[in-house]
């Protein structure tokens, strides 16, 4: 967050560079069951972000040292395809992908009933095909749908969305320019039904009032995404959608 105050990203009428108002999220599309060989899978197109998640397992955890005697472990791997951004991403894991894999696993472990599968592993693969700010949020949302699609028992589904600050104004669901030149970023993972918070990160500075505004935007943004998640699961599993 550089805080490039001279880059104007919202006009005097509150219209952002992509035509949205402060509280709008980008268009979202969700599909479940997109990878036939996986136990569960999902595709999330969130603005220009395109993320695919696949779930395999539960299976015996290998190597044995990662086994937990009383529960399953979530083995999450977040990866950005080399062609997902304008600058080529070097293939393989890096500091950022490891961090996102870890926070995603921790967010999802709070809703997955891991105690039902001791010594097991549930493998979650998140692949970012196209990136345009908010890939970790799209990844968590996709992984949540994929876990549900795989029949993994969960107490809720997690939706993640990020609000932030641009030109001193708090806005919902930052796009690429807003993320690059904005002043703050607050991604949150929220349980769709209970509203419980399972993941929060903050980059940049927000006053208590701005933090509250960003929090409220995130909380409001999950409802339409939850509807899309349910529709995707219904479509893939023979519901009435």
């Amino acid at each position, binding site marked *: 967050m550089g805080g490039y105050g001279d880059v104007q990203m919202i006009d005097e009428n509150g219209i952002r560079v992509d035509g949205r108002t402060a509280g709008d999220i980008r268009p979202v599309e969700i599909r479940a069951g997109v990878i036939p060989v996986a136990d569960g899978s999902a595709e999330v197109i969130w603005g220009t972000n395109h993320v695919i998640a696949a779930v395999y397992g539960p299976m015996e955890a290998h190597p044995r040292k990662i086994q937990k*005697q009383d529960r399953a472990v979530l083995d999450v791997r977040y990866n950005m395809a080399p062609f997902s951004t304008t600058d080529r991403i070097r293939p393989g894991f890096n500091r950022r992908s490891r961090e996102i894999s870890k926070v995603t696993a921790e967010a999802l472990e709070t809703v997955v009933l891991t105690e039902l599968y001791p010594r097991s592993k549930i493998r979650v693969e998140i692949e970012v095909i196209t990136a345009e700010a908010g890939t970790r949020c799209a990844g968590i949302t996709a992984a949540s749908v994929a876990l*549900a699609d795989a029949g993994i028992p969960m107490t809720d589904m997690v939706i993640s969305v990020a609000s932030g600050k641009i030109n001193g104004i708090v806005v919902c669901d930052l796009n690429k320019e807003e993320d690059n030149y904005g002043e703050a970023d607050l991604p949150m993972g929220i349980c769709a039904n209970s*509203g419980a918070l399972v993941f929060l990160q903050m980059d940049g500075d927000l006053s208590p009032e701005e933090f509250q505004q960003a929090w409220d935007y995130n909380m409001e943004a*999950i409802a339409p995404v939850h509807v899309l998640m349910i529709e995707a699961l219904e479509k893939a599993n023979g519901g*009435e959608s």
Partner: protein
Amino acid sequence: MSNQSAHGGRDGRGSRLATPGAMLGAREGRRLGHGVVETDSGLIATKVGFIHSDEKTISVLPTHTRYTPRPGDLVIGVVEAVQSNLWFLDINAPFNALLPMSLGPGKAEFGGARNVLNVGQTVLCRIQEVDETHSSVVTMKGLGLRRIDSGLVESLPPHLMQTLFSDGAALKSLKASTECRVVLAENGRMWIDGSADSITEVVARIDRIRSMARDISNRNEMIAILSEEVA
């Protein structure tokens, strides 16, 4: 926050499919079946599936399951590894099952287990015991338990197998219409034996059912496929 009604999906949509976290209302003295847990705010679904509710029980019939072994289950296993005096079987569960020499199909000298059952061979066996970490021991001591040397083993999702063949009529008509011997195992596998033509016929039907497997509401259509007369 969007909630889901006791009778299925989102409010006002009347869908019968529940998703994880969907509110299923109050317990009202009912027993909690598969895919339902009780929280402070009431019952919630833990799986994607169709809600089944009556006066006694409320459960979610899942659209996707993985086999969880229970003692007494008849299962079809594939030998994955052999040690001096035991075999490891893939029984379609998260963990391989253990078949000790004492419960195997025959005796062999220490180190000669491979002569009795080798990697890749398929056996019909029964779950003897399951520990709290879901590791299981299987036995081949029992009526009808044997090595499978003929026919073909096909698979279906375990929950679908239970739903389709729960009353026995579908299996009976499948056997009658194809003149095949069919043994159903609880781990989602079935052993089909008979003439080459009849095995091909059963496999074609299973393939058709598998393509519809995600939607349990197709149950009657699937049973009709199983009962079709051979042209």
